[in-house]
């Protein structure tokens, strides 16, 4: 992956991998823009900013932890790095660039640099325009599936990363590792939320 290699090369030139983060932080501070507080394994800095900003906009922190609190952005970078093959990695990078291009065309900035209401406007349009996922049967979607596009598939990854994290899956969603007998019809109020597993 070219982008990844480029980032690695930068780190090597800088002397150590850790150095690249502090260097980043320095540049970002100069521009007075949101800092990237983690070191991406696969994405370049701008793509990583996009991932963090999207996660934060889709699943913000409220009285419960947000996506960034449970490191969904770091997970997504890791998944792109370790579970995507080369073709899929090239595709996702192209899709991210395409997404930022849309933001640029509309507001003259990439997504993470937008104001909150501009981010909202972008995502509202994506929600309206992105096809939805078909339902599946035993691990395989059925019916004719239209391409859902970058936003909807990213959102799916973000939701999964969020809900399958320990902080949410164990402590916020209803976690019952050993349920015992199946009970097929109980009041929702008795459960009081959505099952984790």
């Amino acid at each position, binding site marked *: 992956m070219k982008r990844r290699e480029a980032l690695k090369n930068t780190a090597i030139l800088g002397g150590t991998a850790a150095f690249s983060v502090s260097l980043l932080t320095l540049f970002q501070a100069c521009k007075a823009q949101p800092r990237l507080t983690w070191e991406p394994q696969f994405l370049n800095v701008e793509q990583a900013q996009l991932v963090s900003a999207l996660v934060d906009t*889709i*699943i913000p922190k409220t009285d419960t932890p947000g996506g960034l609190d449970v490191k969904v952005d770091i997970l997504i970078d890791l998944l792109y790095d370790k579970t995507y093959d080369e073709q899929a990695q090239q595709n996702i990078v192209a899709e991210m660039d395409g997404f930022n291009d849309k933001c640029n065309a509309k507001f003259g900035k990439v997504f993470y640099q937008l104001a909150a209401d501009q981010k909202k406007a972008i995502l509202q349009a994506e929600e309206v325009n992105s096809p939805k996922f078909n339902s599946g049967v035993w691990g*395989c979607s*059925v019916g004719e599936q239209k391409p859902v596009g970058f936003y909807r598939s990213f959102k799916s990854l973000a939701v999964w*990363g969020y809900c399958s994290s320990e902080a949410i899956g164990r402590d916020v*969603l209803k976690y019952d590792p050993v*349920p015992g007998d199946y*009970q097929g*019809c109980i009041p929702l109020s008795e459960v009081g939320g959505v099952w984790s597993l």
Partner: protein
Amino acid sequence: MSEFKYDYNYNIDAKKNMTYDAIVIGSGMSGGWAAKELCEAGMKVLVLERGRIIQHIKDYPNMNKEAWDWELRGSITPEERKKHYKAVRTNWIGEGNKDLYANDAENPYTEVKPFMWLRAHQMGGRSQLWGKQTYRWSELDFEANAKDGHGVDWPIRYKDIAPWYTYVEKYVGISGQALGLPQLPDSHFLPPMELNCVEKDIRQRIEGAFPSRNMTIGRVAHLTEPLNGRGKCQTRNKCSMGCPYSAFFSSVSVTLPAANATGNMTVRPFSIAHSIIYDEQKEKATGVKVIDAETGEMIEYHARIIFCNASTLSSTRILLNSTSNRFPNGLGNDSGELGHNLMDHTYRVGALGTFEGHEDKYYKGRRPNGIYIPRYWNIDEASKSDKFVRGFGYQGGASRKGWGGGANVQDFGANFKDSLLKDPGPWEFFITGFAECLPYHENKVTLDKNNLDKWGQPTLAIDCEWKENELALNKQIQEDAVEMLEKAGLKDIVGFDKKHEPGFGIHEMGTARMGRDPKTSVLNATNQIHACKNVFVTDGACMTSNSCVNPSLTYMALTARAANHAISELKKLNL
């Protein structure tokens, strides 16, 4: 019976003894039963397993893990996908169970036509991964070939196997609801699992609109009451990572420990059965040639009888590879039918929809089971179709989308997050059919000597396709599914047919069929090779037709029956 001991200390020192009373090739669903029956009768048994040993509980490193315990949340890497490049088509392989799927790269096969062959190369075979759906075949199934003229007649009828069904069911533990249907005989049941409220409503509506159709809870090899020291199902639905309660049936958790408890079993892991040795003078088999998978060494083991339970296509591969002057085209292949008449069930054709109502209801537990709609076509004169012979059944179920439906919710931000955590989303219901496949001579496997595996052995070329009757059944499956969901009041109904190739049902059957006539079949009524009676084949290879219901229970019953026949014949000195 006392509780199972979980540290089995399997005797794996096969080098001390090269001669046994019996050799069982394969330690899966049927091999486990052969081992148990033969060992309990006092025979010294060598079980050959091509992969590693798995000790129940002790060797389930992932049984208590959750998604967050893995760096990649259970996803696998591209390298792992390459290793399992055939099996990944199922979409079922994750970090927690990947080691139970065979290494496709080391074990290639040729798809003359598309065929998904799922293999499990370690102790327990696919009994660690199976769906646990457990149904008796009926008289209708055993008579089918004779009545409509496809394939050859089964040499047995329902009455021959019924007592053996009962025998294995009492030991396996099958939960389900008795219905008294002739086309789906009841098993010896443990209490049924519960239907949820949506399934109950849909059942009432479907049975009301279609009086000849029934909907019931799936009949499954999950304990709903403790049995023989095994605990009942805790509805964790993590079966493929191993069950700490021993609640689902596998050979690793049930039959092999029983065989081991007799002290009569020796297991030889990493042992690839190369061929069965035939003695021209004695006119019987005398043993098995084995390749040590780790060293490549060829070793011969000897026995009075041999049970071939390597799984349908692997058993046939061994027989095809067992050539001699007497059997130049493979052991027992006088008929020319060895390798032929391969069948599977059609898969993933049906309908799904959204159910309105019961939004204030939910369930507790991850029930490893769903609903079942037994066959209703071609069961009598009134249900006769002019479009196809045989029939199909459906599996399915209702559940709420939960957070898994979150990506589709047209919202984001604080409110979205709140609903993700608190609203279980809509109820969804689906049914998906499994249709019977006819036995066609031209659906076959052959030895491919140009394409060798890691051990230099010929691989299989699989040449199999659906034909007119299966495609007509699939068409009916989808039409009926949509119609039933409409009558049940579901919304946003989607009919589907994924057009999966054969093999996806993972119910491959045939290629060494039983029959009455040695000229047209490989095995007799007690699963013995017609012309080499001390070799028994009791896995899916033996099947003469394939019904529309899941086959494992029938393999188990046929194996127990054949093993007890072997024991009695040995006592009479007939083998």
